[in-house]
């Protein structure tokens, strides 16, 4: 394997890693904070992608400069409003009820798919992938894919800052750890839940906006995001940042490696899922659980 092949493999790993991180964060936040699994996560992403694509085309038709970045902001905002409406009408009744929430959000997912189809048909026109590409030896890689890697890392850093360095983050973590005590200390926990759900929706919308040029826009396109996000959340566990980061790395590596070695996307997918099965067997509460118990033992030995 020459240096170019190695670089190509590295780019493919980054590609898988960025996809897993971005597909997962929105789901992970809602799961970590509220203990509900949002099976309509893929359709949340799709709302962002559709809003981005449709507003991009109307902006571009009007000749507005920077149509794509503006359209992406629109995509995120639309998804946040969508999340807010669903939180108020459906989700807030389901917090902490894992199985009920799965059934309800699955229904939302099915309804969304059909509504998108009725409203916009079987596909809408795509956005071309912006920017050129970096070329190395016989290979090329679009700049845009590298931008996605940067975006994934920026999202993780942003969340770390939000949850550890801000007042909101402290209240949010207090709500997760002990809802009753947080309430007695004057934290409006219902509001915390609502805000967190909207942030989670916004992140899903951001993922949709960023991946809009990379995907064919059809009503089923959300499913592809959900499966990988779901697996990553289960392997990662409840901690949003550590879990998502480590699980995306752990799953992205076999995916890219096997895909490359066997020249088959299918084998890459199989390898990723096998690693997920083994990981869940060895770490039933995900990577987060492992990190927690490691921290605890270190604390004990320090005492």
């Amino acid at each position, binding site marked *: 394997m020459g240096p170019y092949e190695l670089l190509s493999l590295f780019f493919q790993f980054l590609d898988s890693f960025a996809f897993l991180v971005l597909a997962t964060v929105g789901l992970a936040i809602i799961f970590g904070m509220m203990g509900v699994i949002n099976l309509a996560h893929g359709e949340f992403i799709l709302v962002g992608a559709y809003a981005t694509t449709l507003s991009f085309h109307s902006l571009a038709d009007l000749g507005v400069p920077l149509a794509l970045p503006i359209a992406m902001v629109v995509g995120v905002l639309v998804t946040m409003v969508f999340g807010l409406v669903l939180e108020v009408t459906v989700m807030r009744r389901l917090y902490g009820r894992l199985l009920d929430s799965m059934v309800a959000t699955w229904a939302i997912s099915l309804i969304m798919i059909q509504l998108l189809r009725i409203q916009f048909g079987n596909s809408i*026109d*795509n956005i071309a*992938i912006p920017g050129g590409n970096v070329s190395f030896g016989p290979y090329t890689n679009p700049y845009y894919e590298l931008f996605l890697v940067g975006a994934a890392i920026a999202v993780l850093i942003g969340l770390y800052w939000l949850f550890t360095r801000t007042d909101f983050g402290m209240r949010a973590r207090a709500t997760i750890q002990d809802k009753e005590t947080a309430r007695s200390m004057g934290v409006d926990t219902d509001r915390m839940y609502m805000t967190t759900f909207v942030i989670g929706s916004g992140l899903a919308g951001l993922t949709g906006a960023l991946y809009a040029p990379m995907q064919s826009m059809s009503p089923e396109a959300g499913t*592809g995001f959900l499966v990988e996000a779901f697996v990553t959340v289960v392997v990662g566990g409840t901690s949003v940042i550590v879990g998502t980061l480590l699980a995306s790395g752990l799953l992205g590596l076999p995916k890219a490696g096997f895909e490359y070695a066997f020249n088959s996307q299918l084998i890459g997918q199989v390898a990723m899922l096998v690693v997920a099965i083994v990981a869940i067997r060895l770490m039933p509460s995900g990577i987060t659980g492992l990190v927690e118990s490691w921290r605890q033992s270190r604390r004990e030995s320090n005492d």
Partner: protein
Amino acid sequence: MSERRFSRRRALATGLSGVGVALAGCLAEEDDGNGSGNGGNGETTGTTDDDAPTVGILENRTGNLALEGTSKHQASLLAIEEINENGGVLGEEVEVFDPDPRSDNQRYTELTQEAIRDEEVDALWAAYSSAARETIRPLINQHDQLYFYTTQYEGGVCDKTTFPVGATARQQLGAVVPYLIEEYGERIYIIAADYNFGQLSGEWVNILAEEEGAEIVGEEYIPLESSSFSSTINNIQGEDPDFIMSMLVGGNHAAFYQERAANDLDIPIGSSTTMAQGYEHLRLDPPALTDMYVGVNYMQELQTDASQEFVDAFYEKFPDAEYINQEAQNNYFSVYMWKEAVERAGTFDQEAVIEELESGIEVDAPEGPIELDPATHHMTHHMRVAHADENHEITFDGEQYIEPTFLHDAGCDLTVESEQTQYEPSDVYE
């Protein structure tokens, strides 16, 4: 009193039957017992008269395959309307039974049953995908139903009452693979959808490459739900083939062409699946499909008189239609071919009509005059290589009149022996 109650029950039954097809089937039978021929098919246009000749047109207008199915449905209606305006078939007006199968194979089964048992259709056009065709073919066989399958497909169906009149993989690939070997060179990279159709098409490219002395330098079969192609593109770049043969299908796989453009991958692509069915050259922004070569028997861009006449008539009837695909043309000419066979037979009796079709029949299709091959029930097609340039303008080249040879090699002769099988290339070659 009792009469009023009865009629109220009838009204209720008729209303309810719109709720579900299975239910509609039951109620229609009950109605027949009451001496009325009309089943209450609330959602279909075909509450058909028992005696009138009826054709079944089961084409998807919603669901996953609506994009490809809609113009098939429209072209069938156009043909029937034209025929009725010109005096019908054997002097009778033809009725249409055309509920929407909604791209759902389960619904295809139900509607096919309804078409055969309740509507007693004289001929049936149904199914876009091979999966849908194979779902309903047992029913077709059970009832010896005259059936036209018009989608381009992997080939190999040898069936007494089935007429697969679309181009086969061998006809399409046989037009485009040798053309590209001649034009660009002998190193071929295959990418195809990972299911029955894609795998068999890949097999055909292998067979054709061997016949032409070309070399397959890489092969990748891609899951239908996959829409990420950066590794595939790097693998292709690593092998640097003279051209790519792509049998990708469906919405997800269209992302390949976007990534190809973003990577400036300018290796030409041959295909049997792009443009002529899902009009990607209109749906994707140029230059995503630059130097795409597709083996087709028809596209609406074809500039012959016969084609333009068809295009004009089609858009006059359906001004909002998005595209006339290859399959729509196949539905159109096969309706006329059926009419011709019925009139030659002098009856709508299906066995007699099949016998007429098998005696050899020619039809002036928009693609050009073509004929049915009696032994295999397939068409000899005018195959062309359609090329998209960097503005997605279509030009045609390398026209050949290609016979359906594969089933002859497989020993299928339906005029001699009645069969209901599907042969695969590996049954015949090697």
